[in-house]
């Protein structure tokens, strides 16, 4: 029955919006998601939130235990001094990249299909970055001193050490978080106005009224608004590239074989977008189904995102290839050993091949249009890619540290339950925030949808 409905609503792969939509209808459909009574929320959302919330509590327990005992509760050791915490950090940051990319780069590239997913993925970016941002603090030996990484005047006359990539991280991640928020919030202002005017209840009128800051859609407002929005896009585009480059510097600045690589910045960025789009799909596909938004998030969107995944996936594959090639071509015994150890010799060789199949082999299925057009298949592939990208970070962090220069100092890494609990916990935090956002704020940009409606209409006239 659902499928029939999908069939009816889904305008097919060419259109970015279903038929028969006018300004009022898109507005009502989107804001309806927020305005519909609490109990009318789709049950899937309740169930999803419940599960996510359980994980949130797992996270809290894990963090309390961690703070009470120290990072020793994790599997990290000398020489593998970085473990899950950093892996998760890089993974979340990577996921966070899709949002800004969709909003900024696709905006500059005038990709109309971005419209109905940009708000959604910007929110995803925010929450992913929030999860990522927690790890650098959690993984500190003395987390209560995390503020020492900020340049603030103090009685010790001491300052951060800006030659360290970790300080670059502090600036990059905080900048990225703030800018993503600005982007997201700026995009929301006109929609807040819509919500304000659509709200029935006095209090919601006032809340949205305050958030809208008196936006009244004047031509002058729009003129400045569009300039600012475009500038944000223009600035975030290099930002999004810089952030994951800086994250990759955490590794490539270090001297470790398997870390000390010039290919890292580009292929980290590609990998970030790869996993980011995967996550957007992982989230968008169910939501679209639950709220019957098939006419706003159409097959066109899904197919486009699938194509982007395929493309970035190929860049990542190239990255892996280069790593392998350079480790041989460098003629450096440590580099050669590193790769041999990563792919065959080390006791985590199987993780490497798992990652290769998740990130390179399986996604090749996306070449086929039939796969791209199959929502379920794309959904599953997105999960596979998310896993693969996590494994990639695992391989980079762990296998390189396990066996570096001094054979006498080699070690082996085994995660503990607390590693896993912390990771699972952040997934819970992320999903809870996502569900709250979907329920409480317009998950699709209404004013931009109106533009789409208008364009579609004018096309129709044109034809």
């Amino acid at each position, binding site marked *: 029955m659902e499928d029939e409905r999908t069939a009816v609503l889904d305008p097919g792969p060419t259109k970015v919006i279903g038929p028969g939509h006018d300004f009022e209808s898109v507005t009502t459909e989107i804001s309806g998601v927020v305005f519909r009574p609490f109990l009318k929320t789709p049950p899937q959302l309740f169930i999803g939130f419940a599960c996510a919330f359980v994980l949130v509590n797992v996270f809290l327990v894990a963090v309390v235990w961690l703070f009470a005992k120290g990072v020793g509760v994790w599997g990290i050791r000398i020489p593998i001094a970085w473990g899950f915490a950093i892996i998760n950090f890089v993974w979340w940051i990577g996921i966070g990249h899709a949002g800004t990319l969709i909003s900024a780069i696709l905006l500059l590239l005038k990709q109309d299909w971005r419209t109905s997913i940009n708000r959604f993925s910007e929110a995803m970016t925010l929450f992913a970055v929030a999860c990522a941002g927690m790890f650098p603090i959690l993984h500190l030996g003395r987390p209560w001193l995390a503020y020492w990484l900020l340049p603030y005047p103090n009685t010790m006359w001491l300052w951060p050490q800006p030659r360290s990539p970790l300080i670059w991280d502090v600036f990059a991640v905080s900048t990225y978080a703030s800018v993503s928020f600005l982007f997201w919030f700026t995009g929301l202002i006109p929609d807040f106005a819509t919500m304000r005017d659509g709200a029935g209840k*006095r209090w919601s009128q006032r809340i949205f009224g305050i958030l809208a800051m008196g936006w009244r859609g004047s031509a002058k407002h729009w003129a400045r608004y569009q300039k600012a929005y475009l500038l944000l896009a223009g600035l975030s585009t290099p930002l999004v590239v810089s952030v994951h480059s800086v994250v990759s510097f955490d590794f490539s600045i270090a001297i470790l074989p398997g870390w000390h690589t010039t290919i890292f910045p580009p292929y980290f960025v590609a990998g970030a977008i790869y996993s980011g789009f995967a996550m957007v799909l992982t989230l968008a596909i169910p939501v679209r189904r639950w709220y019957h938004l098939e006419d706003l998030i159409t097959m066109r969107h899904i197919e486009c995102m699938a194509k982007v995944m395929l493309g970035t996936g190929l860049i990542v594959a190239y990255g892996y290839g280069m790593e392998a090639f350079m480790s041989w071509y460098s003629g450096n015994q440590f580099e050669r050993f590193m790769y041999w150890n990563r792919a065959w010799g080390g006791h985590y060789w199987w993780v490497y091949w798992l990652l290769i199949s998740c990130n390179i082999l399986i996604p090749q299925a996306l070449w086929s249009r039939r796969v791209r057009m199959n929502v379920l298949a794309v959904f599953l592939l997105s999960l596979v890619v998310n896993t693969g990208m996590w494994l990639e970070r695992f391989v980079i962090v762990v296998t390189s540290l396990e066996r570096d220069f001094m054979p006498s100092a080699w070690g082996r890494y085994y995660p503990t339950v607390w590693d896993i609990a912390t990771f699972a916990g952040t997934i819970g935090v992320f999903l809870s925030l996502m569900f709250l956002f979907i329920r409480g704020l317009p998950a699709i940009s209404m004013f931009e949808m109106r533009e789409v409606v208008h364009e579609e209409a004018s096309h129709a006239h044109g034809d």
Partner: protein
Amino acid sequence: MPEFFPRFFSCLGVPRSLHSSYDPAGGLAGSSMKVPDPRVCIAVHDLFFRLTETIERQPHPHFESASRMQIFHRSANSLARVSIVAATFALTGVLWAAYRIDQGAFITDVGVAKDQPVPFSHKHHVSDDGIDCRYCHTSVETSAFAGLPPTETCMTCHSQIWSNAAILEPVRDSYRTGESLAWTRIHDLPDFVYFNHSIHVNKGIGCSTCHGRVDQMPLTYKVNTLYMQWCIECHRNPESYVRPRDQVFNMAYQAPSDQAQLGRHLVAEYNIQSLTDCVTCHR
């Protein structure tokens, strides 16, 4: 659900007149019934409640439902701007307060005389009796630790004078029982800081430079924060603090007017290095 709200919030007693005047007819899903504001928005409500009513009291003859759209009163504009400015000021204020507290006596104990087993007066012993620092702080020239006088030292005099003063009972008691006196530390560095008295004294840093005019303290207190920035200040430019070796124990020593040049001279003569390596103090 909708029925639930009025029952729950009836206690809030929002005037009915308000509801009638704010008929939200024509709103979206579920917006047609009149319900008072839930608690989460009471604050926002109260903020504008009175203001919006004033609108009604001067109804415009021409527009009956003029207030349907206006959610905020005129003054809300100024209110918004003012609150922005206020927030900025508040933030600055908080930071300033934090700074003051950090520098203040509450944290640093500067100028705070602490309880001691015996109300020992440096003023009396140094100024009145003219006892040299080293008579009690024997190891100040030879050891990292300046040394605290054993009870014996006190008793050398106090077995003769004030030999039965009540306030000296703890001293005599200690001497009798062999139980040490437990003084409260005034100048207390963290355990990871290694300060060495002998080298400072030998290089011409006077007692009073760090400890102040102890000879004028009835009860001892510290005059400097002992913050790292305070140490580094001197370690970076010792020439502005160094004094001739023979003046080290002179409590009344005042830096001469030509300290700048004298300092440079002494730094050279005593071969004083400006050590700002971490391991100078932290190991």
